[in-house]
């Protein structure tokens, strides 16, 4: 579990683990898996809220629950930077981790694949594989997106690649 900061790790251990191993094409087991996903997401969300560390909103974009959209944000220098978040559940799920996308930032940073998919650390994949099928979406967010945001947003803001929306508005107005 090296490669993450201690708070991330402690948070990760508190997210309830999943048990059902089913992909989107597995029918009823997937439904079961989806329920577990929700439970773990609820627990993670509550945990974040209670720690005053709420940083995303997601919801299933289709009834099967294979596509998810929402928002994620990061506070830097007392300014909240908010981005659209979207990802699909791959058919090989849960053996393969979902690819998280931040389309707004596509082309703005090197730590990103085409289409806004974020690059994860080298440690992520082995850990995920090791913990299949116990890790779910919540774990992917916690281990993947949260550290990425913490690492990349300050650099992007400082380099001027992204601007706070108030600033952007005022600049356009003028």
């Amino acid at each position, binding site marked *: 579990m090296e490669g993450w900061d201690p708070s991330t790790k402690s948070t990760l251990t508190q997210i309830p683990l999943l048990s059902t191993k089913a992909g989107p094409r597995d029918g009823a087991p997937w439904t079961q898996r989806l329920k577990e996903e929700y439970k773990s997401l609820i627990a993670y969300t509550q945990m974040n809220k*209670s720690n005053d560390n*709420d940083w995303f909103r997601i919801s299933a974009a289709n009834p099967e629950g294979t596509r998810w959209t929402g928002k994620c944000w990061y506070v830097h220098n007392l300014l909240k930077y908010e981005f659209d978040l979207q990802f699909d559940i791959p058919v090989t799920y849960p053996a393969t981790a979902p690819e998280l996308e931040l389309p707004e930032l596509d082309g703005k940073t090197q730590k990103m694949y085409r289409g806004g998919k974020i690059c994860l650390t080298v440690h992520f994949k082995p850990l995920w594989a090791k913990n299949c099928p116990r890790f779910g979406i919540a774990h992917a967010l916690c281990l993947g997106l949260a550290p990425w945001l913490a690492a990349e947003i300050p650099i992007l803001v400082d380099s001027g690649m992204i601007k706070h929306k108030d600033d952007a508005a005022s600049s356009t107005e003028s």
Partner: protein
Amino acid sequence: MDDELLELQRQFEFAQQVKSSIRLSERNVVELVQKLQELRIIDFELLHTVSGKEYITPEQLRNEILGEINKVGRVSLIDLADNIGVDLYHVEKQAQQIVSDDPAFMSIQGEIISQSYWDSVAEEINERLQECSQIALAELAAQLHVGSELVASMLEPRLGTLVKGRLEGGQLYTPAYVARISAMVRGASRGITVPTNLSVLWSSLQQLLQEMEGATGVAVDGSLFQYVFNGLVKEGKILGSLRAGVHWTPSVFAIAQKESVDSFFSQNSFIGYEVLLNLGIPQPIQFLKSRYPEGTALVTMFVHSSLIEMLDAAAEDALERGGWIDTVSVLPASFGPQDASKLLSLCPSVQLALKSNNAFIFGESYLFSSRFIKDVYDRLEKETETFSGSGLSSIMLSDETRCGHDSSRLAESNEVASEIGSNKQAVDKGSKKKRGKSSWSMVASASESGLDNQEHFPTKSKKNQRKGKDNSSLQVSDSRGAVKKESVKAKEDNLNIPSEEWLMQKLRMLVPDFEEQGIEDSETIVRPLANYLRPMLINSWKERRKALFTENAERMKRLMDNLRKKLDESFLNMQLYEKALDLFEDDQSTSLILHRHLLRTTASTIVDMLFHDLDMHNKLKNGLEVEESKNSDLISLSPGEGTAIAKSFPGSLSNRALAVVEALEGKRVETFMSALRAFAEESGLLLRKLDKKLEKTLLHSYRKDLTSQVSAETDSVSLLPKVVSLLYVQLNHKALQAPGRAISVAVGRLKDKLEDSAYKILTDYQSATVTLLALMSAATGNEEDCTSDRILSKRELLENQMAALKGLVLGAPQS
């Protein structure tokens, strides 16, 4: 769609909608507080706890401190800081404020203690005190972990209220206990009748207490006793006086003391300080002076004026009578000589007499009238005159070594004088400038300036030569005089004549009263008297001696001149005779006889004369009266006398003299001669050596003398040696002194030199003389004896031959 899934979806939705609780980090809060303080919203001092997690206001802190204090009544600041969790600095600060605000609290050694605490402690103490009847403050202080002073200051306001007892010298006592102690003290101090050091009394009381209470009894401090005692004295329950805080003199004792002093003094009209000291009066003089202003303080006692009057009367009486008194004998027995002398000096009559030199005080307590002393002095002077004759010789002996030195010094000074003489040319220069200087410096300057002067003043020296001569000779005599004077002075310094012991002995003899005093007393009185008289006696003695010296000096000079002359003469003769002995060197026995003869006759005369004169000279030099011996030429000393005189000579001279005497007894003339020479040198006489010219003249005179003697000689027997001597002079040019026994040998020696006829005459005469002498010695003195006839006939025969013999000698020069 599954309901459950929907439900979960909704739940998730809901969970995401829930407002997240807002959490502030500590950092934010601290910043917030800082901000508040900056904005003056919090305008009071805010403290924080040691952990740094809490803020606390001073009021809260104070409240908490008060709470802690009120729990026990006594709290250490350090404990407070721990308990409240606030830094000690703030705790102290607030505690100070609390203490200053509220008089019920006090801060002592890092502790805050309330009055209520002390009240409870005092109650405890009281309980214990009632149990034990006494507690030491130190003990309490140790128990409470505070200073004993603090305990005392705390207890003092509570004594009599909370604590029923009294504090004394670091001890707490119950009133009952104090009452008991005061009873003890009262009893003890009433029992004392002599002056006592109170601390001794207290220690004995302490011991008593300890015995009564056993091992549990705590030692009572002396100060309690003292306190109780002082109280009793103030109340007048015990009588007496306290000095220096510890010396207690009961009034009973003081009264007894005064009474005894009074009675003694009024009875005896004096009192010794020792008596007062025995009575316990530490400063007797002040005491007596204040008590009896009319009295007088002496060294060891105090006397009433009546005693002085008494002594005054006695002294006056003694002075009028022209006698003396021993004041000690007049005064009571306890008077020492010091007191007596002090008292004596206080007597008005004695003062008067001393002022007018009518009285003298010796040995502290003896008073002599001047008349008495004059009388004694006169008598002593007479004694001394006789003493100089008799007793002096012994003193002379002791003084002789010194005389020897003097004589040698005289010789030295002679040398110096001669030196000066040789340098007179130089001296006259020096003397002109340095006339005032002493002789030795003159000599020095002379020797050093001698050459210079000759070079620098060749003309002047001639001119001043005469003058210089006078000068130098004058100075020489001066220097000699100075040396002499010096030696005399030194001698007189050394001369303790008459000696102190002798004087004391004489005094005792003269004044038999002294003897009555006993030996010790007489020593004390006679010695000072003798000391007083001695300088006067010595003065008179010295004057007489000085007179004698001047007289003797003349005589000494004469004597020495005489001696020198005589000695010269006889010594030359002696040398002359000695030469004749050479003729007989080969004949052992005859030479021996001749040597002896010479020693017995000429030599012994020389020695006797020398010894006698030197002895006389010595005596004169020491200032003795010596009657001029008329027949100084005819002195003959027995060997014993000779040795005695020789021994009486000082120092090395004596040794030399003894050697001479010994040589005189010997057999060789040469040894004698050398001894005599040494002796003469030592005694400062110069012996002249025989030289050719002198020998010739001497021989000539001797021959003339002999010739006249021979021609005048009528005695046939004594003619022979003279003729023989004359013959020796004529033929051998030697003066022979031959005894009768050696005549025959002497005659025999002449055989070669004389004509046969002349020799015949000589031998005949000689043999005839021998027979005559033999007959004479054989003669019994009997008139009828035929020997007398034969003697007569022989004598006639000799007388007949005398002419021929005379012709032999007297005619020879003519022929």
